[in-house]
């Protein structure tokens, strides 16, 4: 392709007029963006957003921005899912309404978005919000690094969204297997967008994980031993450690593929000594731990929600900690089960099959622990608990199909079929997404002061669970019939009814998402009725409930001396839940900084420039990053002091709210 000095490979042909549907999708993105920008401008909210949100280093606001990013990307990823279900429901002996090329972009962006730009930011958002509060800490270890992590993730998401409007996205699936993704088979910029989005967000994820690890090791409340940390913090720790060890695999796989594509190297090409098997190994050394990066924190959420709504202690805390650590370590020993069919020796395949089953043991023990937590409890069925119960029942089915796939001879039959698709959605939808929804409903009142509407929450729950079963059980059946994944059309009449049922399931999920949108609107409109600044709406056991809702910027005016697990529950049973001194000390907090948005913007520019071979712009991006680091290194005043008077006023308001709540209860 011709390349100009000024615009690289970018020409007007990059606009998505190759199909009316793609152009429509781009139109929605552009129009939606324009409406949001217009609305903010009309409300004159830019200074507020910049001052209070974009430049913040407060882990709570960063967490909320992560979750907002994830919810937006969830909508985008779900539209992709709906498009695929609609296509396959009608594409029996017919082309359907999507060209193969467009269908391929849709399934590639669905997978990429749901894992990297929905699941990861949602988890990192909840971890950001909750972990320091549960540790009884005033802040994270590296607030600036944390902000940069958010903005790099957002830059990666923006690159994926940009591909919808300018150019195309990859057609190589979320795994991007070469040689298909090499220049000779995928000459368009789609794969480059995919690589750049993952590399940029991968750096952000790694920075965030470093921050969490140091926070958990160094910032715990005085006296809190590791084995007195809430289980969610343990899972956040394991997940972050996995990120540190696993993401380099993705960076190397994507980076080497980029070297092949940009500099004509031969790591994974068909010729010149390249070998696709190396990619498969490197990618899945990242890819399998990634599953646990996503699912372990969700296990932590369930381990928090289930005891609270059972009004009982978590059963087997020690076992759950060890099981989590076991899973984290074992997750690095099973990657080969993603390609049993690549022709490895029977000894090798059998070994990795056995290792995979070993992981099922600690996971199974966790399920028993959750059931025993409910045993002899007093169960309240608010929405976070409903998600947790649906998770247990649905997840064990997915676990069973996972063990089936871990048996190599069965994998030979089910690999690359819709059985596999059904399996991993059966793990990640209940295992990760239901956990995220439970956490969203559970900690929403902590972040905002008011609760999510229960009625609409239940409706969303019913449509989601029904939709999940309708959408994915037929895919298991299709897998038995030998239906391959990623087919844009097919010629087997008996398959169609199952695809139609799956499409109905997707529509049910759409209703569920609709209910969640309504739930948010209704909850905000009726917030006066559920407003509870006292801070403990559920009868929580951990320290995030021992401060006001929403918590002050400094989280806790007084750091608590911790000597037991479930520190807040222990303090309540002591009859002294709150520590209210007569006078307060000033507290040092990090200042706001524009560095997050600047790095995010530069990373986007750099990624976009590399995708389109606009080398001068890429140079601007690199120089900008280096220059910003140099300028920042001269900053001396990076913190500010919140005065004792301000803290006293804030705390007294909260004390009044708590007393009012106590009187109302008694």
């Amino acid at each position: 392709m011709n390349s100009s000095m000024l615009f690289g490979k970018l020409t007007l042909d990059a606009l998505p007029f190759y199909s009316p549907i793609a152009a429509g999708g781009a139109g929605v993105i552009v129009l939606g963006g324009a409406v949001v920008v217009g609305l903010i401008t009309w409300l004159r909210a830019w200074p507020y957003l910049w001052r209070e949100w974009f430049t913040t280093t407060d882990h709570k606001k960063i967490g909320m921005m992560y979750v907002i990013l994830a919810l937006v990307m969830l909508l985008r990823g779900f539209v992709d899912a709906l498009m695929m279900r609609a296509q396959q429901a009608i594409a029996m002996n017919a082309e359907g309404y999507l060209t193969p090329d467009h269908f391929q972009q849709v399934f590639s962006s669905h997978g990429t978005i749901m894992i990297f730009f929905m699941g990861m930011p949602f988890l990192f958002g909840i971890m950001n919000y909750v972990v320091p509060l549960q540790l009884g800490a005033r802040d994270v270890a590296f607030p600036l690094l944390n902000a940069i992590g958010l903005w790099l993730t957002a830059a990666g998401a923006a690159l994926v969204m940009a591909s919808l409007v300018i150019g195309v996205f990859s057609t190589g699936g979320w795994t991007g297997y070469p040689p298909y993704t090499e220049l000779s088979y995928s000459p368009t910029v789609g794969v480059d967008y995919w690589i750049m989005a993952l590399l940029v967000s991968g750096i952000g994820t790694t920075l965030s994980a470093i921050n969490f690890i140091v926070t958990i090791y160094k910032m715990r409340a005085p006296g809190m031993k590791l084995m007195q940390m809430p289980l969610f913090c343990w899972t956040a720790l394991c997940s972050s450690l996995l990120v540190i060890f696993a993401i380099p695999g993705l960076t190397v796989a994507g980076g080497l593929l980029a070297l092949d594509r940009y500099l004509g190297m031969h790591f994974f090409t068909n010729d010149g000594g390249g070998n696709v098997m190396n990619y498969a190994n490197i990618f899945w050394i990242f890819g399998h731990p990634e599953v646990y990066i996503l699912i372990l924190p969700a296990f932590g959420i369930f381990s928090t929600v289930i005891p609270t709504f059972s009004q009982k202690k978590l059963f087997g805390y020690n076992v759950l900690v060890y099981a989590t650590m076991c899973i984290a370590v074992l997750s690095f020993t099973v990657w080969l089960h993603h390609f049993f069919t690549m022709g490895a020796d029977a000894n090798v395949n059998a070994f990795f099959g056995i290792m995979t089953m070993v992981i099922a043991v600690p996971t199974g023990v966790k399920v028993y622990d959750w059931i025993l937590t409910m045993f002899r409890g007093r169960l309240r069925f608010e929405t976070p608990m409903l998600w947790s119960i649906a998770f247990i029942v649905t997840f064990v089915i997915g676990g069973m199909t996972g063990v089936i796939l871990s048996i190599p001879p069965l994998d030979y039959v089910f690999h690359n079929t819709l059985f596999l698709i059904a399996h991993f959605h059966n793990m990640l939808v209940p295992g990760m997404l239901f956990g995220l929804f439970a956490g969203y409903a559970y900690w929403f009142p902590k972040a905002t002061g008011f609760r999510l509407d229960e009625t609409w929450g239940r409706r969303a729950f019913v449509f989601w669970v029904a939709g999940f079963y309708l959408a994915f059980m037929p895919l298991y059946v299709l897998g038995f019939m030998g239906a391959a994944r990623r087919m844009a059309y097919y010629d087997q009449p008996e398959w169609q009814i199952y695809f139609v049922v799956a499409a109905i399931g997707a529509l049910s999920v759409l209703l569920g998402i609709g209910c969640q949108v309504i739930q948010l609107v209704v909850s905000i409109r009726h917030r006066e009725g559920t407003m509870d600044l006292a801070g403990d709406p559920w009868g929580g056991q951990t320290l995030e409930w021992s401060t006001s809702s929403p918590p002050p910027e400094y989280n806790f005016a007084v750091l608590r001396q911790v000597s037991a697990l479930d520190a807040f529950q222990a303090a309540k049973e002591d009859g002294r839940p709150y520590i209210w001194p007569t006078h307060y000390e000033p507290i040092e907090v990090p200042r706001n900084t524009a560095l997050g948005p600047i790095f995010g913007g530069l990373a986007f520019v750099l990624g976009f420039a590399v995708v389109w071979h606009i080398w001068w712009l890429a140079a601007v991006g690199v120089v900008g990053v280096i220059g910003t680091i140099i300028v920042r290194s001269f900053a001396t005043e990076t913190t500010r002091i919140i005065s004792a008077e301000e803290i006293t006023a804030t705390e007294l308001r909260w004390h009044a709210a708590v007393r009012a709540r106590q009187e109302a209860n008694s």
Partner: protein
Amino acid sequence: MFKDTMLDPAGPVSAATRDLFFDSVGLMLIVVLPVIVLTALVVWRYRAGNAAAAYTPHWGGSRLVELGLWFLPVLIVVMLWFVVWNRTHDLDPYKPLSSGQPPLVVQAVALDWQWLFIYPEENIASVNRLVFPVGRPVTIELTSDSVMNSLMIPALGGQIYAMAGMQTELNLMADRIGIYDGRNTMFNGDGFSAQVFNAEAVDVAAFQAFVAEARNAGETLDGGSFKTLSTPTIAGPVRLYSGVEDGLFQSIIASHGSMPHMEADTTTAPHAEHNP
């Protein structure tokens, strides 16, 4: 509805796979069913409204119970280990199938987006159609002239990847006559969905007739006609070739060899010990 799938096997490999499937599911249901039933029972019995149920808010563990929890999953998984080890060796796709007859060797080449089948002993080739005698093992040697592919005939058994510059192997057999679906299951581009072929298990006479039909096809497959054939084609027709240039399959592998202008280094292929 599961006609000619693993649940309705047409050969010994898929029949053994089906048995393995039911055995392992049966074992796992010992763990899974009680979890589902217990969850339902516990959720119902210990609902907040049920004042008659016991309530022990401080009960957070019991060494005996916690140890016991590991017992059942460990037991099931250890049983599955033996199943996995034995059956993975029994059902190794590289393992020749036992039968009174020597296997029919077929060399399969994945193209964009067609399948080429070379019959070296018969010195014929077919495209998008695989014919073989019922009751006689078939040894399929695979490679790709393009990106990664995976060949699967669900009625007969599992799949193995086909990769450029490398040779892999799949042993299958049909024990009843029929026309079965075969396909590539590994996404490989625009023609992926149409990359299907008929796998025809026929009696010996019909196989001889197929060989004779191919020998009368006229066109032979050599470097030149292979080049024509390998241009990207979606839903290409069935073709037959009356002869195949000597060593074509190996030269296709070598053309993607580790270094230009060198023989293919087959030792880099998986399962190298099976590829002398």
